[in-house]
């Protein structure tokens, strides 16, 4: 339990951008090895400032493991930065 692995892996993400309290919702992402992970729940989305750059952290799960996706709002890139509790 709690076997956090910290990564710096660029991933392809399918996300919806809409209105409301959570305008950006990642739906699924594809890892470098080709595996596609369908997101079943977004736990928390919190923005952090890295200097003047805004990076949005999405803590998500597919029901089998927890992941952290980082969306760089300046460069428009998605990075998988953490994987934990793979069952």
């Amino acid at each position: 339990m709690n076997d956090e692995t910290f990564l710096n892996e660029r991933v392809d993400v399918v996300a919806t951008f809409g209105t409301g309290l959570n305008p950006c919702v990642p739906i699924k992402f594809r890892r470098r090895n080709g595996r596609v992970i369908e997101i079943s729940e977004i736990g928390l989305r919190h923005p952090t400032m890295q200097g003047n750059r805004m990076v949005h952290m999405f803590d998500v799960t597919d029901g089998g493991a927890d992941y952290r996706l980082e969306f760089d709002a300046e460069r428009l890139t998605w990075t998988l930065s953490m994987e934990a509790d793979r069952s």
Partner: protein
Amino acid sequence: MRNDYNAARPTVIHIDLNSCFATVEQQARPRLRGRPVAIVNRRTDTTMIVTASYEAKAMGVKLGMRLKDAKKLCPDLIGLESDPPKYRYVYHQLMRIMQDYSAHVRMKSIDEGVIDFSDSTLAMQNRDLVDIGWEIKRRLWNEVGCAMNCNVGIATNRFLAKTAASLHKPNGLDVITADNLRKVFGTLELTDLTGIAEQFEKRLNGVGIFTPLQFLDADPVLLQKMVFKSIVGLEWHQRLRGWEVDKRDFPIRTAGRQYVLDGYKMPRAEVLKRLHHLCEETGAKVRSQGLVARGVSVHARSYSDTGRGWRGSYWHARHMAAVPFFSNQAIFEQAKKLFEGAPVFVKEIGVSCYELSEPDESQLHLFGDDLARDKSLTNAVDQINSRYGKRVIHSADTLTTRMVKEKIPFGSTRYL
């Protein structure tokens, strides 16, 4: 001074997030929900637990316990390293929700705050505070996450509202009024009252006060002259009766940081590097408030071999400078000099600046050119760090001190 209980309609709501950091982690990582979780600042066995989830608390895990001791009580305990940006986000969300109800919101710490409705609009004053309390709970679930819970306390003053918020954890909502004040106090211990810890409890016991009800019925002169030995005694007499005496702000007096070392028998050069790191963070704190300091204080907790085992002790030293200072280098130079008198083996180090004040720009200094150069350089570094990220520029001495992580700001909300 009023001797009666405040029978007015309650106007203060106290909101307290339940086991805040552990709950935020359970919100962020759904697979942790319902499991015992402990938050630590560093994931080693000897580190102290900062927050435990209710599942962990049910197994006997307490704050301040070492992680390895807690794991004996609760083998499934999950130790997580703290993640301050996440907690800061939830703090700002809670504050945003609270500010929708009144302009008079005062955050007491990273996980609790007070809404004062006494000066609110008539429309808001006509609303039932119990309804507002439930609405805030619902909004926290909807706008932050379904795992987030808070305790709500409602009363006529800040003290009783906080007391009400601690009656039924987790996720309670309680109201203390003049009608149920004695009944509520009858269920509490003296140390359940915020502000009464072991020392004050002893003093109260010394004059025959053993319960909150006896405290409530105590003569104000006895409290002033015998127990608290100041006006604080009279304030307690009013506070317990629901009259507001805590509606005030205190100016910032000190700014500092402390750090539990990542090794007990560390060479002095390594300790000084960490001290330098703390001085840089302390300098940034002082400057972020637009202030300058006159004094530096350093402390260390040490361990020495007495022949019958290791014994801990506390050491501190302070120095008051002739002229105000603000730069990291000025703070470190003084702290380093003071630290020459520190014990050999230290476990914890800390530095703080005191006698903080607004800079006096009107007076010309003898060494004005040096000060101006120092100020320009410090401002330039602060601006670069603000633009490109914390510690993008720092002293070469602290290149290897990444282990001195950002700390959760527990007390003051000034730096959140």
